[in-house]
């Protein structure tokens, strides 16, 4: 083969490859345009445990059952990387049409944060109607609603009632009783609480649970005051008491041995094996635990108040459903959002997530111990959903770990939280 002939062959090949590439690209873009009138759409959400049905999946399946012509493509993303994945896709313009967001501003995928960045589509009035009272600022920006509230969660502790009963244990109603119970349970070789001490999200959740009675019971608007610098964490006696109580709990043996290095796996194993009686997890986890141990009963418990304090809790929508501003299937996604906001949609999610069934009699449910608090409305939404960035909650979570290991003092942790607030 001559040099000249070889060059011609190469040139012909290059032209053919370029033409084929152009055709393929044109084909891809054409397929996207065709979807504009489709009744189908894509849905992204975080998954934590493959053994448990994700509530968003339950929503999608129920909706497709009611609407056989609708095809929802599910994109499950591991919980650890969900925020990073979603924000990357939103920036790139290739996020799913609808997706899970977190109410408020505390996370990288928070509803208000994404809405202010112009990445979310405003939703219909149906979404506005289901926002829990007092939580409007976690879903609305300048009068528009950007997330359908889902799953009213009570943040306290989840008690393995079956193990507690067999151990002859009754959940205490005051703080002194809790500390003495810790010592009694520890003497029997168990622990009252299991804590993922190496995981800031879990240590932070415990601190928030305790802060309900120490901070927010007396001053439900504490977050608003902090936002305008009328108070600080370091100057708050309530927050100081919260962290000092955690130090006292550690000294009293409330947690399992080796708590400082424990991960989330310890919560599941200790709760199901009966070596610990309760865990600081959202109320929805009771449903997850029940799915793994059908012969055991789990109850939602509030953290007892300090002497002279009143019973108080933290409850609010822990999840939201939002629609991408750049969605090519907005109409289909909006119809889905409308259905999710109906009583049927809310019930499907509540059942799958083990959320608080609003407006129902709680006496025969796992929420019975906190029914009084819920009925009286003695609760505030999740505090960190109103904190300005994720670093504040991280400072709280890692700070509590520092309290458990003795690396930090209460004052240092509170100062770190103020610094993270900015």
């Amino acid at each position: 083969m001559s040099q000249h002939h070889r060059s011609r062959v190469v040139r012909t090949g290059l032209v053919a490859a370029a033409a084929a590439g152009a055709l393929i690209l044109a084909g891809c873009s054409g397929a996207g345009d065709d979807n504009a009138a489709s009744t189908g759409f894509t849905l992204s959400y975080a998954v934590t445990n493959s053994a448990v049905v994700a509530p968003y999946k339950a929503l999608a399946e129920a909706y497709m059952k009611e609407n056989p012509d609708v095809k929802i493509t599910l994109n499950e993303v591991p919980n650890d990387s969900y925020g990073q994945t979603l924000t990357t896709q939103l920036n790139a313009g290739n996020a799913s049409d609808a997706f899970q967001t977190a109410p408020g501003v505390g996370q990288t995928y928070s509803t208000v944060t994404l809405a202010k960045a112009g990445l979310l589509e405003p939703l219909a009035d149906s979404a506005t109607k289901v926002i829990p009272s007092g939580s409007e600022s976690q879903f609305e920006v300048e009068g528009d609603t950007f997330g359908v509230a889902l799953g009213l969660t009570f943040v306290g502790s989840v008690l393995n009632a079956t193990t507690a009963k067999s151990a002859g244990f009754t959940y205490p109603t005051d703080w002194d009783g809790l500390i003495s119970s810790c010592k009694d349970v520890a003497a029997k070789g168990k622990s009252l609480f299991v804590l993922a001490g190496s995981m800031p999200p879990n240590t932070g959740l415990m601190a928030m649970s305790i802060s309900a009675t120490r901070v927010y019971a007396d001053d439900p608007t504490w977050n608003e005051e902090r936002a305008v610098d009328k108070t600080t964490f370091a100057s708050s006696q309530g927050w100081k008491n919260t962290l000092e109580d955690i130090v006292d709990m550690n000294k009293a043996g409330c947690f399992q041995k080796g708590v400082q290095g424990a991960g989330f796996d310890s919560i599941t194993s200790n709760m199901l094996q009966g070596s610990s009686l309760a865990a600081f997890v959202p109320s929805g986890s009771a449903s997850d635990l029940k799915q793994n141990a059908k012969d055991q009963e789990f109850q939602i418990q509030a953290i007892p108040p300090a002497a002279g304090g009143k019973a108080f809790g933290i409850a609010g929508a822990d999840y939201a459903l939002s629609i991408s501003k750049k969605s090519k299937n907005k109409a289909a996604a909006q119809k889905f959002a409308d259905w999710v906001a109906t009583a049927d949609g809310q019930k499907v999610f509540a059942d799958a997530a083990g959320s608080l069934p609003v407006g129902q009699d709680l006496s025969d449910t796992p929420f019975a111990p906190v029914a009084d608090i819920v009925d009286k409305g003695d609760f505030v939404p999740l505090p960190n959903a109103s904190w300005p960035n994720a670093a504040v909650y991280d400072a709280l979570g890692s700070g509590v770990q520092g309290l458990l290991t003795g690396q930090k003092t209460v004052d240092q942790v509170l100062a770190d939280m103020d610094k993270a607030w900015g």
Partner: protein
Amino acid sequence: MSATMYSETEVVIVPKRRRREQRQGTRPRRAGVLSFGHWWWALPGIVLVIGIHYVATAVGGAYAFTDWTGIGAFHWIGLDNFVAIFQDPTKIGALGNTLFLAIASVLLTNVIGLGLALGLNRLIKTRYALRVLFFMPVVLSPLAVSYIWKFIFDFNGPINAILNSLGLQSWVRPWLADPSFAIWAVLVVIVWQQTGFAMVIYMAGLAAVPPEIEEAAAIDGAGLWQRFWHVVLPAIRPAVAIATTLGIVNGLRIFDQIMALTNGGPAGATETLATQVYKQAFSLGNFGYGAALALLLALIILIFAVIQQRLTASRPEEA
């Protein structure tokens, strides 16, 4: 007749015209089949490398001078991110941990790796099997290895079980959550996994050292240590340069093992610049700040790599 002047290969690879020109020895020659190709054929690859690697890196570096949160708009804030880094004790601690892990791991892996290479270089009959055993950790996934070690260091793991069985209850502790021991536990895992790599590099270096030189030194009365220090070590200087440079670069960017073992805890005791980059940029949404940390880490790696090369470079007369 003149064609018989060329070898069989030359007949095939040198163009006829070139042969003719060679005979005439006057006109400029054209490249033959051996120099097949043109520099611009590499253009697509060069453009891709520049576009995907260097431009993307430069753009990422530019975010170090912004307050971008990962979404929405951003503002140029000059050196504020770098000022914030050096004013934050936790970031200084992360920098200290980064340097500690890099220097300690490169020292330990190279000393142990060189010792293993010397021991398994000759004589021992089972050296081939032992080489495989010592090199095995290198090929395993750092994440998988770290999770196994996490179990070993766990409060309910085998180390504490052995200590309990020996009656040493006071030594029992959550190793990875102990502020004094956590960083050492991470170091143990890194050294365990990286030593085999250093060993292989030194074995390659030792293979090039002629036994006759060592024998000559021995005949001249040199002891074991003298033979190693004055004969073997100078001969494997290039291997030392490669092993230490790669070791220091890998040590400075340690990430997987820390994320799997301690996630930077307890309370930041094992944070490094690499884990902070990930945490700030992706977990906490401080992309600009994370980019500044990444730029700082890249600069430190560059400085250490240059110093390392200078220290271990062969002298001109040895080249």
